[in-house]
Protein backbone atom coordinates (compact mmCIF):
# COMPACT_ATOMS: atom_id res chain seq x y z
CA UNK A 1 0.00 0.00 0.00
CA UNK A 2 2.83 2.36 0.94
CA UNK A 3 4.66 1.38 -2.24
CA UNK A 4 1.53 2.16 -4.30
CA UNK A 5 1.10 5.54 -2.64
CA UNK A 6 4.80 6.31 -3.12
CA UNK A 7 4.49 5.36 -6.78
CA UNK A 8 1.46 7.61 -7.24
CA UNK A 9 3.22 10.51 -5.52
CA UNK A 10 6.38 10.07 -7.60
CA UNK A 11 4.40 9.75 -10.85
CA UNK A 12 2.35 12.83 -9.95
CA UNK A 13 5.52 14.74 -9.17
CA UNK A 14 7.10 13.78 -12.47
CA UNK A 15 3.99 14.75 -14.43
CA UNK A 16 3.77 18.09 -12.58
CA UNK A 17 7.45 18.71 -13.27
CA UNK A 18 7.00 18.00 -16.98
CA UNK A 19 3.91 20.19 -17.28
CA UNK A 20 5.67 23.04 -15.45
CA UNK A 21 8.79 22.82 -17.56
CA UNK A 22 6.80 22.80 -20.82
CA UNK A 23 4.77 25.79 -19.60
CA UNK A 24 7.99 27.59 -18.69
CA UNK A 25 9.47 26.95 -22.14
CA UNK A 26 6.33 28.16 -23.90
CA UNK A 27 6.15 31.28 -21.75
CA UNK A 28 9.80 32.10 -22.34
CA UNK A 29 9.48 31.46 -26.05
CA UNK A 30 7.08 34.37 -26.41
CA UNK A 31 10.10 36.67 -26.15
CA UNK A 32 11.65 34.84 -29.12
CA UNK A 33 8.67 35.50 -31.39
CA UNK A 34 8.47 38.19 -34.04
CA UNK A 35 7.17 40.98 -31.77
CA UNK A 36 5.22 44.06 -32.91
CA UNK A 37 5.67 45.60 -36.31
CA UNK A 38 6.84 49.17 -36.72
CA UNK A 39 3.45 50.81 -36.85
CA UNK A 40 4.63 54.37 -36.53
CA UNK A 41 7.07 54.60 -39.41
CA UNK A 42 7.97 58.30 -39.32
CA UNK A 43 8.84 58.70 -43.00
CA UNK A 44 7.58 56.60 -45.89
CA UNK A 45 10.23 54.51 -47.70
CA UNK A 46 11.84 56.45 -50.52
CA UNK A 47 11.07 59.79 -48.96
CA UNK A 48 13.84 62.15 -47.93
CA UNK A 49 15.44 61.05 -44.67
CA UNK A 50 13.90 57.57 -44.69
CA UNK A 51 17.31 56.01 -45.32
CA UNK A 52 18.85 57.96 -42.42
CA UNK A 53 16.17 56.79 -40.01
CA UNK A 54 16.48 53.23 -41.22
CA UNK A 55 20.27 53.32 -40.87
CA UNK A 56 19.96 54.80 -37.37
CA UNK A 57 17.56 52.06 -36.27
CA UNK A 58 19.71 49.36 -37.88
CA UNK A 59 22.83 50.54 -36.05
CA UNK A 60 20.95 50.72 -32.78
CA UNK A 61 19.42 47.27 -33.34
CA UNK A 62 22.82 45.74 -34.12
CA UNK A 63 23.95 46.54 -30.58
CA UNK A 64 20.88 45.18 -28.83
CA UNK A 65 21.52 41.42 -28.95
CA UNK A 66 18.12 40.78 -27.40
CA UNK A 67 15.46 38.21 -28.27
CA UNK A 68 13.55 38.96 -31.45
CA UNK A 69 10.39 40.22 -29.70
CA UNK A 70 12.38 42.69 -27.60
CA UNK A 71 14.30 43.91 -30.64
CA UNK A 72 11.05 44.46 -32.53
CA UNK A 73 9.49 46.28 -29.58
CA UNK A 74 12.47 48.59 -29.07
CA UNK A 75 12.66 49.33 -32.77
CA UNK A 76 8.94 50.02 -33.06
CA UNK A 77 8.95 52.21 -29.96
CA UNK A 78 11.85 54.33 -31.18
CA UNK A 79 10.34 54.60 -34.65
CA UNK A 80 7.17 55.88 -32.96
CA UNK A 81 9.21 58.33 -30.94
CA UNK A 82 10.98 59.62 -34.04
CA UNK A 83 7.64 60.04 -35.77
CA UNK A 84 6.31 62.17 -32.90
CA UNK A 85 9.53 64.10 -32.60
CA UNK A 86 9.75 64.89 -36.33
CA UNK A 87 6.09 65.93 -36.49
CA UNK A 88 6.59 68.22 -33.53
CA UNK A 89 9.70 69.80 -35.03
CA UNK A 90 7.95 70.29 -38.36
CA UNK A 91 5.13 72.02 -36.48
CA UNK A 92 7.75 74.31 -35.00
CA UNK A 93 8.80 75.25 -38.53
CA UNK A 94 11.63 72.84 -39.29
CA UNK A 95 11.91 71.49 -42.81
CA UNK A 96 11.44 67.72 -42.95
CA UNK A 97 15.08 66.89 -43.60
CA UNK A 98 16.29 69.17 -40.78
CA UNK A 99 13.58 67.85 -38.47
CA UNK A 100 14.77 64.30 -39.11
CA UNK A 101 18.40 65.19 -38.40
CA UNK A 102 17.40 67.07 -35.24
CA UNK A 103 15.19 64.19 -33.98
CA UNK A 104 17.94 61.64 -34.63
CA UNK A 105 20.50 63.89 -32.96
CA UNK A 106 18.40 64.14 -29.79
CA UNK A 107 18.56 60.37 -29.41
CA UNK A 108 22.35 60.45 -29.52
CA UNK A 109 24.69 57.94 -31.19
CA UNK A 110 22.68 54.87 -32.22
CA UNK A 111 25.30 52.35 -31.09
CA UNK A 112 25.49 53.93 -27.63
CA UNK A 113 21.70 53.97 -27.39
CA UNK A 114 21.62 50.29 -28.37
CA UNK A 115 24.22 49.41 -25.71
CA UNK A 116 22.32 51.30 -23.00
CA UNK A 117 19.06 49.61 -23.94
CA UNK A 118 20.77 46.22 -23.89
CA UNK A 119 22.14 46.92 -20.41
CA UNK A 120 18.68 48.00 -19.27
CA UNK A 121 17.16 44.70 -20.43
CA UNK A 122 19.89 42.31 -19.39
CA UNK A 123 20.00 42.73 -15.63
CA UNK A 124 21.86 40.35 -13.33
CA UNK A 125 18.56 39.29 -11.80
CA UNK A 126 17.21 38.29 -15.21
CA UNK A 127 20.44 36.46 -15.98
CA UNK A 128 20.14 34.37 -12.80
CA UNK A 129 16.47 33.69 -13.49
CA UNK A 130 17.40 32.69 -17.03
CA UNK A 131 20.11 30.32 -15.86
CA UNK A 132 17.83 28.70 -13.29
CA UNK A 133 14.96 28.46 -15.75
CA UNK A 134 17.30 26.95 -18.33
CA UNK A 135 18.40 24.21 -15.95
CA UNK A 136 14.78 23.48 -14.96
CA UNK A 137 13.64 23.36 -18.57
CA UNK A 138 16.61 21.17 -19.49
CA UNK A 139 15.51 18.66 -16.85
CA UNK A 140 12.00 18.54 -18.21
CA UNK A 141 13.29 18.42 -21.78
CA UNK A 142 15.56 15.50 -20.92
CA UNK A 143 12.69 13.42 -19.54
CA UNK A 144 10.38 14.32 -22.43
CA UNK A 145 13.13 13.71 -24.98
CA UNK A 146 13.95 10.37 -23.39
CA UNK A 147 10.32 9.24 -23.60
CA UNK A 148 10.05 10.51 -27.16
CA UNK A 149 13.38 8.86 -27.97
CA UNK A 150 12.11 5.49 -26.74
CA UNK A 151 9.08 5.85 -28.97
CA UNK A 152 11.26 6.89 -31.91
CA UNK A 153 13.77 4.09 -31.36
CA UNK A 154 11.07 1.45 -31.02
CA UNK A 155 9.32 2.68 -34.15
CA UNK A 156 12.64 2.65 -35.98
CA UNK A 157 13.37 -0.85 -34.75
CA UNK A 158 9.96 -2.08 -35.86
CA UNK A 159 10.45 -0.42 -39.26
CA UNK A 160 13.90 -1.97 -39.75
CA UNK A 161 12.67 -5.40 -38.60
CA UNK A 162 9.76 -5.18 -41.01
CA UNK A 163 12.08 -4.18 -43.86
CA UNK A 164 14.44 -7.08 -43.08
CA UNK A 165 11.50 -9.50 -42.94
CA UNK A 166 10.15 -8.25 -46.28
CA UNK A 167 13.57 -8.55 -47.89
CA UNK A 168 13.94 -12.05 -46.46
CA UNK A 169 10.51 -12.98 -47.85
CA UNK A 170 11.64 -12.03 -51.37
CA UNK A 171 14.82 -14.02 -50.94
CA UNK A 172 17.25 -11.25 -50.05
CA UNK A 173 18.93 -12.16 -46.78
CA UNK A 174 20.97 -9.42 -45.16
CA UNK A 175 24.12 -10.35 -43.25
CA UNK A 176 23.64 -10.56 -39.50
CA UNK A 177 25.49 -7.45 -38.41
CA UNK A 178 24.59 -7.80 -34.75
CA UNK A 179 25.98 -11.30 -34.22
CA UNK A 180 25.01 -13.62 -31.42
CA UNK A 181 24.82 -11.13 -28.59
CA UNK A 182 21.30 -11.87 -27.38
CA UNK A 183 20.07 -8.52 -28.63
CA UNK A 184 22.66 -6.55 -26.66
CA UNK A 185 23.59 -4.41 -29.67
CA UNK A 186 19.98 -3.64 -30.52
CA UNK A 187 19.23 -2.75 -26.91
CA UNK A 188 22.24 -0.46 -26.63
CA UNK A 189 21.31 1.25 -29.92
CA UNK A 190 17.79 1.86 -28.65
CA UNK A 191 19.20 3.24 -25.40
CA UNK A 192 21.70 5.51 -27.16
CA UNK A 193 18.99 6.81 -29.51
CA UNK A 194 16.79 7.69 -26.54
CA UNK A 195 19.61 9.51 -24.76
CA UNK A 196 20.56 11.38 -27.96
CA UNK A 197 16.97 12.58 -28.34
CA UNK A 198 16.87 13.54 -24.66
CA UNK A 199 20.14 15.50 -24.99
CA UNK A 200 18.82 17.37 -28.04
CA UNK A 201 15.52 18.37 -26.42
CA UNK A 202 17.16 19.25 -23.09
CA UNK A 203 19.73 21.55 -24.72
CA UNK A 204 17.16 23.19 -26.94
CA UNK A 205 14.76 23.78 -24.07
CA UNK A 206 17.60 25.25 -22.00
CA UNK A 207 18.67 27.68 -24.74
CA UNK A 208 15.21 28.93 -25.58
CA UNK A 209 14.07 29.25 -21.97
CA UNK A 210 17.18 31.01 -20.70
CA UNK A 211 17.20 33.33 -23.73
CA UNK A 212 13.58 34.35 -23.11
CA UNK A 213 13.98 34.82 -19.37
CA UNK A 214 17.38 36.53 -19.40
CA UNK A 215 16.54 38.64 -22.48
CA UNK A 216 19.59 37.50 -24.38
CA UNK A 217 19.56 36.58 -28.05
CA UNK A 218 19.31 32.77 -28.37
CA UNK A 219 22.51 32.71 -30.41
CA UNK A 220 24.36 34.31 -27.48
CA UNK A 221 23.22 31.93 -24.75
CA UNK A 222 23.50 28.99 -27.14
CA UNK A 223 27.27 29.13 -26.79
CA UNK A 224 27.03 28.59 -23.02
CA UNK A 225 24.49 25.80 -23.28
CA UNK A 226 26.40 24.13 -26.10
CA UNK A 227 29.51 23.97 -23.92
CA UNK A 228 27.48 22.78 -20.91
CA UNK A 229 25.65 20.22 -23.06
CA UNK A 230 28.86 18.96 -24.60
CA UNK A 231 30.43 18.51 -21.14
CA UNK A 232 27.42 16.95 -19.39
CA UNK A 233 26.24 14.75 -22.23
CA UNK A 234 29.81 14.02 -23.33
CA UNK A 235 30.57 12.71 -19.85
CA UNK A 236 27.32 10.74 -19.82
CA UNK A 237 27.95 9.25 -23.26
CA UNK A 238 31.59 8.34 -22.70
CA UNK A 239 31.67 7.34 -19.04
CA UNK A 240 28.13 7.27 -17.67
CA UNK A 241 26.22 4.99 -20.04
CA UNK A 242 27.22 1.53 -18.91
CA UNK A 243 25.86 -1.62 -20.46
CA UNK A 244 26.31 -3.86 -23.45
CA UNK A 245 28.52 -2.21 -26.05
CA UNK A 246 29.38 -2.69 -29.69
CA UNK A 247 30.91 -0.50 -32.41
CA UNK A 248 27.48 0.71 -33.64
CA UNK A 249 26.33 1.63 -30.14
CA UNK A 250 29.65 3.26 -29.19
CA UNK A 251 29.52 5.26 -32.44
CA UNK A 252 26.02 6.43 -31.66
CA UNK A 253 26.97 7.28 -28.05
CA UNK A 254 29.87 9.42 -29.26
CA UNK A 255 27.37 11.35 -31.39
CA UNK A 256 25.31 12.34 -28.32
CA UNK A 257 27.41 15.41 -27.32
CA UNK A 258 27.52 16.43 -30.98
CA UNK A 259 23.73 16.20 -31.14
CA UNK A 260 23.49 18.36 -28.00
CA UNK A 261 25.75 21.04 -29.51
CA UNK A 262 23.88 20.99 -32.82
CA UNK A 263 20.54 21.29 -30.99
CA UNK A 264 21.81 24.44 -29.27
CA UNK A 265 22.56 26.21 -32.58
CA UNK A 266 20.66 24.78 -35.53
CA UNK A 267 17.56 26.89 -36.30
CA UNK A 268 17.48 27.95 -32.66
CA UNK A 269 15.60 31.15 -33.47
CA UNK A 270 12.75 29.16 -34.93
CA UNK A 271 10.01 27.90 -32.64
CA UNK A 272 10.08 24.24 -31.74
CA UNK A 273 7.33 22.10 -33.20
CA UNK A 274 5.04 21.29 -30.31
CA UNK A 275 4.24 17.63 -30.11
CA UNK A 276 0.70 16.73 -30.85
CA UNK A 277 -1.69 14.50 -28.96
CA UNK A 278 -0.78 11.42 -31.01
CA UNK A 279 2.92 11.83 -30.29
CA UNK A 280 2.13 11.83 -26.56
CA UNK A 281 -0.08 8.75 -26.93
CA UNK A 282 2.59 6.85 -28.94
CA UNK A 283 5.24 7.81 -26.38
CA UNK A 284 3.06 6.63 -23.51
CA UNK A 285 2.34 3.31 -25.23
CA UNK A 286 6.04 2.86 -25.98
CA UNK A 287 6.89 3.52 -22.36
CA UNK A 288 4.35 0.97 -21.14
CA UNK A 289 5.70 -1.59 -23.64
CA UNK A 290 9.24 -0.87 -22.49
CA UNK A 291 8.39 -1.20 -18.80
CA UNK A 292 6.43 -4.44 -19.34
CA UNK A 293 9.20 -5.81 -21.59
CA UNK A 294 11.83 -4.98 -19.00
CA UNK A 295 9.81 -6.69 -16.27
CA UNK A 296 9.36 -9.81 -18.42
CA UNK A 297 13.03 -9.93 -19.43
CA UNK A 298 14.23 -9.42 -15.86
CA UNK A 299 11.92 -12.15 -14.64
CA UNK A 300 13.37 -14.48 -17.27
CA UNK A 301 16.95 -13.59 -16.41
CA UNK A 302 16.48 -13.95 -12.68
CA UNK A 303 15.09 -17.43 -13.17
CA UNK A 304 18.10 -18.55 -15.18
CA UNK A 305 21.42 -16.84 -14.73
CA UNK A 306 20.79 -13.83 -12.52
CA UNK A 307 22.41 -10.54 -13.35
CA UNK A 308 25.68 -12.01 -14.54
CA UNK A 309 26.96 -10.61 -17.84
CA UNK A 310 27.08 -14.10 -19.19
CA UNK A 311 24.17 -14.53 -21.50
CA UNK A 312 24.04 -18.27 -21.43
CA UNK A 313 26.67 -20.25 -19.68
CA UNK A 314 27.38 -23.61 -21.15
CA UNK A 315 29.52 -26.25 -19.57
CA UNK A 316 31.05 -28.15 -22.47
CA UNK A 317 32.34 -30.99 -20.44
CA UNK A 318 33.79 -32.11 -17.19
CA UNK A 319 37.48 -32.99 -17.40
CA UNK A 320 37.01 -36.58 -18.37
CA UNK A 321 40.17 -37.34 -20.23
CA UNK A 322 38.90 -36.22 -23.60
CA UNK A 323 35.43 -37.63 -23.96
CA UNK A 324 33.94 -34.14 -24.17
CA UNK A 325 30.58 -35.05 -22.72
CA UNK A 326 29.98 -37.37 -25.59
CA UNK A 327 29.96 -34.42 -27.97
CA UNK A 328 31.59 -34.55 -31.38
CA UNK A 329 35.18 -33.36 -31.71
CA UNK A 330 35.33 -29.90 -30.22
CA UNK A 331 38.95 -29.40 -31.29
CA UNK A 332 40.39 -29.13 -27.80
CA UNK A 333 43.59 -30.65 -29.17
CA UNK A 334 44.18 -27.29 -30.87
CA UNK A 335 44.90 -25.92 -27.38
CA UNK A 336 47.43 -28.52 -26.31
CA UNK A 337 47.71 -32.33 -26.23
CA UNK A 338 45.81 -34.03 -23.44
CA UNK A 339 47.95 -34.86 -20.41
CA UNK A 340 49.06 -38.52 -20.24
CA UNK A 341 46.98 -40.51 -17.78
CA UNK A 342 50.03 -41.54 -15.76
CA UNK A 343 50.62 -37.91 -14.79
CA UNK A 344 46.95 -37.13 -14.32
CA UNK A 345 45.27 -40.14 -12.72
CA UNK A 346 41.52 -40.36 -12.57
CA UNK A 347 40.13 -38.48 -9.60
CA UNK A 348 42.53 -35.57 -9.91
CA UNK A 349 39.64 -33.29 -10.86
CA UNK A 350 36.36 -33.76 -9.06
CA UNK A 351 34.34 -30.97 -10.57
CA UNK A 352 34.38 -27.43 -11.91
CA UNK A 353 32.40 -24.74 -13.47
CA UNK A 354 32.12 -21.07 -14.21
CA UNK A 355 29.93 -18.20 -13.23
CA UNK A 356 29.83 -14.56 -12.32
CA UNK A 357 32.39 -13.32 -9.83
CA UNK A 358 30.43 -11.12 -7.43
CA UNK A 359 33.47 -9.15 -6.31
CA UNK A 360 34.70 -8.00 -9.72
CA UNK A 361 31.77 -8.65 -12.03
CA UNK A 362 33.96 -10.88 -14.16
CA UNK A 363 33.66 -14.56 -15.00
CA UNK A 364 35.10 -16.94 -12.43
CA UNK A 365 36.23 -20.36 -13.62
CA UNK A 366 37.30 -23.06 -11.21
CA UNK A 367 38.17 -26.72 -10.86
CA UNK A 368 38.22 -28.74 -7.67
CA UNK A 369 41.15 -31.08 -7.29
CA UNK A 370 41.35 -34.17 -5.16
CA UNK A 371 43.49 -37.28 -4.76
CA UNK A 372 47.13 -36.63 -5.40
CA UNK A 373 46.58 -33.07 -6.47
CA UNK A 374 48.82 -31.63 -9.16
CA UNK A 375 52.18 -32.68 -7.82
CA UNK A 376 53.51 -33.46 -11.31
CA UNK A 377 52.61 -30.14 -12.77
CA UNK A 378 53.88 -26.60 -12.80
CA UNK A 379 52.64 -23.27 -14.24
CA UNK A 380 49.02 -24.31 -14.00
CA UNK A 381 46.81 -21.82 -15.78
CA UNK A 382 43.43 -21.23 -17.37
CA UNK A 383 43.50 -20.35 -21.08
CA UNK A 384 40.54 -18.61 -22.74
CA UNK A 385 40.17 -19.48 -26.41
CA UNK A 386 37.82 -18.16 -29.02
CA UNK A 387 35.05 -20.65 -29.58
CA UNK A 388 32.55 -21.35 -32.32
CA UNK A 389 28.94 -20.31 -31.67
CA UNK A 390 26.97 -23.05 -30.03
CA UNK A 391 23.48 -23.44 -31.39
CA UNK A 392 21.19 -25.98 -32.96
CA UNK A 393 23.35 -26.22 -36.07
CA UNK A 394 26.75 -26.21 -34.41
CA UNK A 395 28.08 -27.98 -31.31
CA UNK A 396 30.56 -25.17 -30.70
CA UNK A 397 34.12 -26.01 -29.67
CA UNK A 398 37.47 -24.31 -30.17
CA UNK A 399 37.63 -21.94 -33.15
CA UNK A 400 40.66 -23.40 -34.94
CA UNK A 401 41.28 -20.18 -36.90
CA UNK A 402 43.11 -18.95 -33.81
CA UNK A 403 46.44 -20.37 -32.77
CA UNK A 404 46.70 -18.84 -29.31
CA UNK A 405 44.40 -18.04 -26.40
CA UNK A 406 43.03 -14.53 -26.23
CA UNK A 407 43.39 -14.40 -22.43
CA UNK A 408 45.43 -16.33 -19.89
CA UNK A 409 45.11 -16.37 -16.09
CA UNK A 410 47.32 -18.20 -13.62
CA UNK A 411 45.30 -20.74 -11.62
CA UNK A 412 45.22 -19.69 -7.99
CA UNK A 413 45.01 -22.61 -5.53
CA UNK A 414 42.88 -22.07 -2.47
CA UNK A 415 42.32 -25.24 -0.50
CA UNK A 416 41.23 -27.74 -3.12
CA UNK A 417 39.96 -25.07 -5.46
CA UNK A 418 41.86 -23.90 -8.53
CA UNK A 419 40.33 -20.68 -9.77
CA UNK A 420 40.83 -17.65 -11.98
CA UNK A 421 38.73 -14.66 -12.98
CA UNK A 422 38.42 -13.53 -16.60
CA UNK A 423 36.94 -10.21 -17.60
CA UNK A 424 35.27 -11.22 -20.85
CA UNK A 425 32.89 -8.32 -20.34
CA UNK A 426 35.86 -6.02 -20.93
CA UNK A 427 37.01 -7.73 -24.14
CA UNK A 428 35.48 -6.63 -27.41
CA UNK A 429 35.69 -9.95 -29.26
CA UNK A 430 35.06 -12.49 -26.50
CA UNK A 431 31.54 -13.30 -27.66
CA UNK A 432 32.00 -17.09 -27.63
CA UNK A 433 34.76 -18.53 -25.51
CA UNK A 434 36.09 -21.74 -24.08
CA UNK A 435 38.33 -21.89 -21.01
CA UNK A 436 40.77 -24.81 -20.77
CA UNK A 437 43.11 -25.59 -17.87
CA UNK A 438 46.71 -26.35 -18.94
CA UNK A 439 50.01 -26.91 -17.17
CA UNK A 440 53.65 -27.78 -17.84
CA UNK A 441 54.37 -31.45 -17.26
CA UNK A 442 57.50 -33.19 -15.98
CA UNK A 443 58.88 -33.32 -19.55
CA UNK A 444 58.76 -29.54 -19.85
CA UNK A 445 55.87 -29.51 -22.36
CA UNK A 446 52.51 -27.88 -21.81
CA UNK A 447 49.52 -30.21 -21.66
CA UNK A 448 45.83 -29.84 -21.41
CA UNK A 449 44.47 -31.14 -18.11
CA UNK A 450 40.86 -31.36 -19.23
CA UNK A 451 38.55 -30.30 -22.00
CA UNK A 452 37.15 -27.04 -20.80
CA UNK A 453 34.08 -25.07 -20.21
CA UNK A 454 32.57 -22.45 -22.41
CA UNK A 455 29.91 -19.89 -22.84
CA UNK A 456 29.19 -16.63 -24.46
CA UNK A 457 29.25 -13.10 -23.15
CA UNK A 458 29.13 -9.60 -24.44
CA UNK A 459 31.05 -6.45 -23.68
CA UNK A 460 29.60 -4.66 -20.68
CA UNK A 461 30.86 -1.25 -19.74
CA UNK A 462 31.06 2.33 -20.91
CA UNK A 463 32.07 3.69 -24.30
CA UNK A 464 35.41 4.62 -22.73
CA UNK A 465 35.87 1.02 -21.55
CA UNK A 466 35.15 -0.13 -25.09
CA UNK A 467 37.57 2.30 -26.70
CA UNK A 468 40.39 1.47 -24.27
CA UNK A 469 39.73 -2.29 -24.16
CA UNK A 470 42.67 -4.50 -25.11
CA UNK A 471 42.45 -5.94 -28.59
Amino acid at each position, binding site marked *: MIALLSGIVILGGVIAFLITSVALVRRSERRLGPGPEE*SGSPVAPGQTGAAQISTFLDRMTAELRLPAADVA*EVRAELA*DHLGDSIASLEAEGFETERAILEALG*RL*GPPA*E*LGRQLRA*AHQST*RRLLVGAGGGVFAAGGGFVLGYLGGIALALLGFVAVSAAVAILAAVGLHLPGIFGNDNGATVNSLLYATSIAMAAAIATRYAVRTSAGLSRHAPGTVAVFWAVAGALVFGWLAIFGMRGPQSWPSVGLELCIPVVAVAAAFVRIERPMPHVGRWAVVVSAISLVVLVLGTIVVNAGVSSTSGSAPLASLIVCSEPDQGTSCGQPDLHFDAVAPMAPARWLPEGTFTGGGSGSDPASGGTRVDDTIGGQGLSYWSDVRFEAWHALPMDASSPGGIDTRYSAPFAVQAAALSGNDLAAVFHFERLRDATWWCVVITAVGPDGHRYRLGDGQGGNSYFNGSAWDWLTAPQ
Partner: protein
Amino acid sequence: MSGRIRTQLLKGTTTLLVLTVLRDGELYGYEIAQRIIQRSSGAFAPSEGSLYPALHALEADGALQASWRESNRGPRRRYYKITKTGLGMLEEHANEWAAFSLGMSQAVGGANQQ
Protein backbone atom coordinates in the same frame (compact mmCIF):
# COMPACT_ATOMS: atom_id res chain seq x y z
CA MET B 1 21.58 78.02 -16.88
CA SER B 2 24.06 76.74 -19.43
CA GLY B 3 23.26 73.42 -21.18
CA ARG B 4 26.35 71.66 -19.84
CA ILE B 5 25.59 72.44 -16.18
CA ARG B 6 21.95 71.50 -16.64
CA THR B 7 22.90 68.16 -18.16
CA GLN B 8 25.19 67.46 -15.21
CA LEU B 9 22.44 68.32 -12.74
CA LEU B 10 19.93 66.17 -14.60
CA LYS B 11 22.13 63.11 -14.36
CA GLY B 12 20.59 60.73 -11.89
CA THR B 13 17.27 62.55 -11.77
CA THR B 14 15.73 60.92 -14.84
CA THR B 15 14.34 58.06 -12.77
CA LEU B 16 12.72 60.45 -10.29
CA LEU B 17 11.27 62.62 -13.07
CA VAL B 18 9.89 59.64 -15.00
CA LEU B 19 8.28 58.08 -11.94
CA THR B 20 6.85 61.44 -10.91
CA VAL B 21 5.06 62.11 -14.21
CA LEU B 22 3.83 58.54 -14.44
CA ARG B 23 2.23 58.80 -10.98
CA ASP B 24 -0.51 60.82 -12.65
CA GLY B 25 -1.35 58.22 -15.28
CA GLU B 26 -0.17 56.07 -18.19
CA LEU B 27 1.98 57.73 -20.83
CA TYR B 28 4.15 56.67 -23.75
CA GLY B 29 7.79 57.61 -24.24
CA TYR B 30 7.44 60.84 -26.20
CA GLU B 31 4.62 62.01 -23.91
CA ILE B 32 6.76 61.37 -20.85
CA ALA B 33 9.53 63.62 -22.22
CA GLN B 34 7.02 66.36 -23.05
CA ARG B 35 5.29 66.06 -19.68
CA ILE B 36 8.61 66.49 -17.84
CA ILE B 37 9.33 69.67 -19.83
CA GLN B 38 5.83 71.00 -19.11
CA ARG B 39 5.91 70.22 -15.39
CA SER B 40 9.32 71.87 -14.97
CA SER B 41 8.26 74.85 -17.11
CA GLY B 42 11.03 74.01 -19.51
CA ALA B 43 13.73 73.85 -16.83
CA PHE B 44 14.33 70.13 -17.36
CA ALA B 45 14.46 68.47 -20.76
CA PRO B 46 15.63 64.90 -20.29
CA SER B 47 17.98 63.57 -22.91
CA GLU B 48 15.87 61.44 -25.22
CA GLY B 49 18.80 59.07 -25.59
CA SER B 50 18.78 58.33 -21.87
CA LEU B 51 15.00 58.32 -21.46
CA TYR B 52 14.35 54.98 -23.13
CA PRO B 53 17.15 53.04 -21.38
CA ALA B 54 15.79 54.45 -18.10
CA LEU B 55 12.24 53.39 -18.97
CA HIS B 56 13.34 49.89 -19.94
CA ALA B 57 15.51 49.53 -16.82
CA LEU B 58 12.59 50.57 -14.61
CA GLU B 59 10.41 48.05 -16.40
CA ALA B 60 13.02 45.32 -15.82
CA ASP B 61 13.10 46.25 -12.12
CA GLY B 62 9.33 45.95 -11.91
CA ALA B 63 8.75 49.66 -11.27
CA LEU B 64 6.89 50.09 -14.56
CA GLN B 65 4.58 47.94 -16.61
CA ALA B 66 4.49 48.42 -20.37
CA SER B 67 1.78 47.52 -22.86
CA TRP B 68 1.08 48.24 -26.50
CA ARG B 69 -2.16 50.10 -27.11
CA GLU B 70 -3.80 52.29 -29.70
CA SER B 71 -3.14 55.94 -28.86
CA ASN B 72 -5.68 58.76 -28.93
CA ARG B 73 -3.91 60.41 -31.82
CA GLY B 74 -2.90 57.69 -34.20
CA PRO B 75 -0.83 54.52 -34.22
CA ARG B 76 -0.14 52.04 -31.41
CA ARG B 77 2.14 53.23 -28.65
CA ARG B 78 4.00 51.55 -25.87
CA TYR B 79 2.37 52.89 -22.72
CA TYR B 80 4.06 52.81 -19.35
CA LYS B 81 2.20 52.48 -16.06
CA ILE B 82 3.73 52.82 -12.62
CA THR B 83 3.43 49.76 -10.38
CA LYS B 84 3.29 49.38 -6.61
CA THR B 85 7.03 48.78 -6.63
CA GLY B 86 7.45 51.92 -8.70
CA LEU B 87 5.44 53.98 -6.19
CA GLY B 88 7.71 52.76 -3.41
CA MET B 89 10.75 53.59 -5.49
CA LEU B 90 9.32 57.05 -6.23
CA GLU B 91 8.86 57.77 -2.52
CA GLU B 92 12.41 56.66 -1.80
CA HIS B 93 13.89 58.78 -4.63
CA ALA B 94 11.77 61.81 -3.66
CA ASN B 95 12.99 61.64 -0.04
CA GLU B 96 16.59 61.34 -1.20
CA TRP B 97 16.16 64.26 -3.54
CA ALA B 98 14.54 66.40 -0.83
CA ALA B 99 17.43 65.73 1.54
CA PHE B 100 19.94 66.37 -1.22
CA SER B 101 18.37 69.62 -2.43
CA LEU B 102 17.96 70.90 1.13
CA GLY B 103 21.62 70.21 1.87
CA MET B 104 22.67 71.73 -1.44
CA SER B 105 20.52 74.87 -0.83
CA GLN B 106 21.99 75.32 2.63
CA ALA B 107 25.53 74.86 1.33
CA VAL B 108 25.06 77.19 -1.63
CA GLY B 109 23.11 79.69 0.51
CA GLY B 110 25.90 79.64 3.08
CA ALA B 111 28.48 80.25 0.39
CA ASN B 112 26.47 83.22 -0.96
CA GLN B 113 26.15 84.71 2.56
CA GLN B 114 29.90 84.50 3.05
